[in-house]
C-alpha cells in the first residue's frame, strides 16, 4: 500500500475529561467515551451499525480484574454478541487498537467498527503504579533493585546533553509549551500554565528530570468510530482519513540499547507510516507526540525527522514545535498536560487530530491543518506506533 494510504476513515471521535476521577468507575469511563464518540457523528449513527470493537487497556490489574478481556467493553455497552478484541501493547495500546481495527476494515471484514481506549490508573497509590511496576519488571537484571521510568528516560536526558550539548532548559521549555496548549483543551487534566522557573525548580525526581518534566498519572477514556472510506459519507461530510500506520520494536531492557540518545523504533515506525502515506516529515502540519517526559518529546523531534539529529534543542528554540511554527507539537497539551491514561492515550490523540483536521480546535487550532501525526512510545522506546491522518482521502491525491 506504499503511498496509497488505507481505505479507512474516522467518522466520530470523543473523549471524557481526563483527570483524577475518584467518582467515576472504569465502566462509566468506557460508556462516557462511547457516548461522546457516537454523538460526534455529524449525521448520526445507530449503535447496531457497529459490527465489532477493539478495547485498548494496558494495566488490567490496576482495576482489580484478574483477566482483562473484550468483555470489559462488551459488558458495560451491552454489546453482545458482537466481537470485542482487547489490546495491550504498553503505551502504544490505544494506537495499536486503532491500527488493528483499521486492518480489519482494510481486509474487507467489517465496514464500521468502534475503538475504545480506557485506563483507570488512580485507584491505586502512586507507589504501586507505573513507577514501581517498571521497577520490578527487570528488578533483578537492573542490579540490585530495579529501575523506574523516570530513571530510564533521565538516563537518555543525561546522554543527550553529553553528546549534543542539549541544555536542561531545552526540554524544560517543552513542559511550558504543552501546559500553554493544554489549558485551552477542555479535556485536559491540567489546565494551568507553568513557567520555566517552575519546571526547573520543581521537586527533583530523577536528575536531570524534575516533577514538572513528567506527565501525570491520569484516569480517562476515549473512543473513535472507524469506517471503510467508501461509506464514510453516510455518517459525515467531514471525516478524517488514516493515511499511514507503523509499529516498530526495540529491546525492552535498558541494558540492551544501542544508544541512549535516540529511539530507533520511532524512526522505524515513522518510516513505515511515511511510506504508506507517501509523505515526508515536512508535509506534516501538527503532531501529537508521546511526551511522557519532556526529554522524550525532544528526542522524538529528531527521530521523526522534524529536525536534524542532535538539533532538537535549537529546533524547539526556533519555534518549530509551537502553534504557528513549522510542525505544531502536542496542541492538545500532550501527555504532559492532558494526562496519560495509558490505554486511552493513543485514542485521545485521534480526538485531537479529529478536531484539528476539522478546524474545531478553537484557541489551539493550527491554521490550514491538512496532515497530522500521532506517536506513542512504550517502555524505553521498546515499542513505538506512528499513525498519520489527513483531511482528505489519500487516494484522491494530494501530494
Amino acid at each position, binding site marked *: 500500500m506504499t503511498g496509497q494510504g488505507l481505505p479507512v476513515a474516522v467518522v466520530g471521535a470523543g473523549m471524557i475529561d481526563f483527570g483524577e476521577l475518584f467518582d467515576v468507575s472504569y465502566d462509566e469511563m468506557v460508556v462516557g467515551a462511547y457516548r461522546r464518540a457516537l454523538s460526534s457523528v455529524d449525521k448520526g449513527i445507530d449503535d447496531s451499525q457497529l459490527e465489532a470493537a477493539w478495547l485498548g487497556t494496558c494495566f488490567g490489574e490496576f482495576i482489580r480484574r484478574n483477566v482483562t478481556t473484550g468483555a470489559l467493553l462488551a459488558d458495560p455497552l451491552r454489546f453482545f454478541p458482537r466481537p470485542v478484541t482487547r489490546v495491550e501493547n504498553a503505551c502504544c495500546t490505544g494506537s495499536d487498537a486503532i491500527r488493528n481495527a483499521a486492518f480489519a476494515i482494510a481486509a474487507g471484514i467489517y465496514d464500521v467498527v468502534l475503538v475504545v481506549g480506557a485506563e483507570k490508573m488512580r485507584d491505586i497509590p502512586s507507589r504501586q503504579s507505573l513507577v514501581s511496576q517498571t521497577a520490578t519488571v527487570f528488578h533483578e537484571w537492573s542490579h540490585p*533493585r530495579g529501575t523506574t521510568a523516570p530513571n530510564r528516560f533521565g538516563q537518555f536526558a543525561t546522554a543527550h546533553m553529553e553528546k549534543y550539548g542539549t541544555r536542561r532548559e531545552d526540554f524544560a521549555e517543552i513542559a511550558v509549551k504543552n501546559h500553554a496548549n493544554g489549558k485551552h483543551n477542555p479535556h485536559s487534566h491540567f489546565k494551568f500554565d507553568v513557567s520555566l522557573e517552575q519546571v526547573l525548580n520543581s521537586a527533583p*525526581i530523577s536528575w536531570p528530570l524534575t516533577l514538572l518534566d513528567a506527565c501525570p498519572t491520569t484516569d480517562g477514556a476515549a473512543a473513535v468510530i472507524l469506517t471503510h472510506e467508501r461509506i464514510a459519507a453516510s455518517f459525515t461530510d467531514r471525516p478524517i482519513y488514516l493515511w499511514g500506520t507503523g509499529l516498530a520494536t526495540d529491546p525492552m531492557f535498558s541494558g540492551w540499547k544501542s544508544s541512549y540518545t535516540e529511539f530507533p523504533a520511532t524512526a522505524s515506525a515513522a518510516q513505515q507510516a511515511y511510506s504508506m502515506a507517501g509523505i515526508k516529515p515536512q508535509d506534516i502540519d501538527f503532531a501529537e507526540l508521546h511526551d511522557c517526559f519532556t526529554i522524550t518529546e525532544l528526542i522524538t523531534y529528531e527521530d521523526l525527522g522534524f529536525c536534524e539529529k542532535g538539533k532538537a534543542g535549537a529546533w524547539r528554540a526556533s519555534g518549530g514545535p509551537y502553534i504557528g511554527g513549522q510542525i505544531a507539537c502536542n496542541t492538545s497539551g500532550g501527555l504532559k498536560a492532558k494526562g496519560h491514561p495509558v490505554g486511552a492515550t493513543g485514542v485521545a490523540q485521534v480526538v485531537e487530530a479529529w478536531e484539528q483536521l476539522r478546524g474545531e480546535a478553537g484557541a489551539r487550532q493550527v491554521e490550514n491543518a491538512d496532515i497530522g501525526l500521532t506517536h506513542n512510545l512504550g517502555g524505553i522506546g521498546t515499542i513505538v506506533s506512528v499513525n498519520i491522518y489527513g483531511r482528505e482521502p489519500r487516494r484522491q491525491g494530494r501530494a
Partner: protein
Amino acid sequence: MSSVNGGRDTVSTSWGSSAGLSGLGWYVPRLRLASKQWQKAWPGVSTDGGVTVAVPDSDEDVVTMAVEAADGALADAGISIDDVDEIYLASASGPYTTKSSAAMVGAGLGADRARTVDFGGSTRSIGDALTAALDAVAHGRVRRVLVIGSDFLPATPGDTLETRFGGAAGAAVVDAEARLLQARAAGSVLSTATTHWRCSGAKFVQRYDDPRLEREGSVVPNLVRSAASILEPEDLFVLPGTAAKFERLIAKESGHPRVSAQARTLAGVIGDTGNAHSLVALAEALSEAPTSVVVGFEGSGAGASAIRFTVPEAADLSRRQAVLPAVSDGALIDYVTFLKATGKLAPSDTSGPASPYSASPGWMRDERHLLAPTGALCSACGSLNYPPRSICIDCRGSDLTEVLLPRTGTVLTYNVQHIVPISPEEAPVAVCVAQMEGGRADGYGGKVTALMLREAAEDVRIGSEVRLIFRRAGVEHGMVRYGYKFGLRESSS
C-alpha cells in the same frame, strides 16, 4: 595466674612441609563509628573498644564482605576461582541461621564446582577452618581451599559492645605450594568459658558485665595455653580480636615478648572483627616481615587455637601492603547513620514491592546468572549478551557460549534518582548503564545497569571507569537478595 575455667585439654597437630598459604586478602568496610560519637548518644556509659569500629553499610553483610576479601586473596595468589576446590566460610554473624552463607559466597565468586562449607558457632571457627583446609591439602584430598572469615557481631543498641565489635572479612588461599606461609604446627584448647554469647533467635549478643573473666577465665589463659606448645622464640604472635587489648598481658603470661605490636592499634581502628580478625591481623603482621608467626584464634565458649607458620625463603614480604594505612581514612558517621547502616533503625515497612521472582521457579532459573553475572558470548559477532539469551541481540547468531561477565566497564549514561520505589536504598542514588569489557562495544550487548555505590554517587560521569561489586539488595520474603553495584575504579576516582 588463676584460671576460672581454663583449658582442660591441649591438642597439637603438625604438618610436614606439605601445606600453607599462598595468598591473603582482606576487606574492611569504609564506615567508622567513633567511640566519641557513640558516647554522645549514650553519655555516662563507658566504651569497650578503641577509637573507632568499622561498620558495614546497609548493603553489606558477612557474605558481601567475604566475597570482597576472597577476591583479594585470589588476586594475591594469582589464581582464579576455577582453581579452587573448596570454599570454607567461618562466621558467627551470617545472615541466616538455617541457610548456607558459604554457598552464597561461592555463587558471588562465580564458583561452579567448588564444595562450599559453613564453619560457625564461635569466633575461633576461622582457625578450625584453616586447620581443616591445611589437613585436606596436606593429605592430598584437595589441591586448593579458599578459607574466609567474616563477621560483624550484632550488639544491642546502647550496649558498650557497639564500640567493640567491628565488621571485616579476611581470606586465605590454602595449598601445597605455600608461597606465603608454610604451616608447621597447631595447638588447641577446649574450654566452654565465654564472656559473650547469642541464643538462637536472639538478635543481639549478650555478655557478662565482668571484664575480669576475659583476663583471667577465658581469652588470655586459653590463648596462652593453645600456643604454649608451638611458640618458638622468633615467632611473631598474631592475636584475635578478643585478645587485642590484652597484648601486654599475653606477652607477659606467655613469656613471649614478640606479640604483634599492631594488634591493639588495628583493633582500635576496625574493632574486634570476630572470625575475620586473625586473618586481617596476619595480613598486617606480614608487613612487619617476620620469619615466622603464630596466629591465635579464640572465642565464644569454644576455647582457643593457634597455628604456627614459617615464611619460606622464596617469599618476598617486602612489598606487601600493610592494612593499617589503608583503613585509617574511613568515613566517620554519627550514631543515627550507624543505626540505619546496621538495620537497628529502619522504617516499619521495608519490604517494598516483591520482585517478579518472589521465590518462584523463575528465580531459581536466573539466580546463577545474577549472583555471578554470566553473559552469552556470540561466536559470530563477539557481542557479549547480558542477560544470557538464545539468539544474539546484535547479529541474531545462535552459537553462544556462556562466560563469566567481566567485572569492569565504562559508564555510558547515568542519572540520579531522588525517588526510590524499592526500599531500603536511600535517595538520592545514581543509576548507571555501563559497557562491560570483553565484548564488542558498538552494539546492543555487553551492558549492565546498576546503582553506583552511595559514596561514589556524586563522582560518576559518562566515561567513568567502574567495576561490579557484590552487595545486598534488600530483603524479600525474609530472604536476603544479593546483586551488584558499581564502584569507581581507582583510575577514574
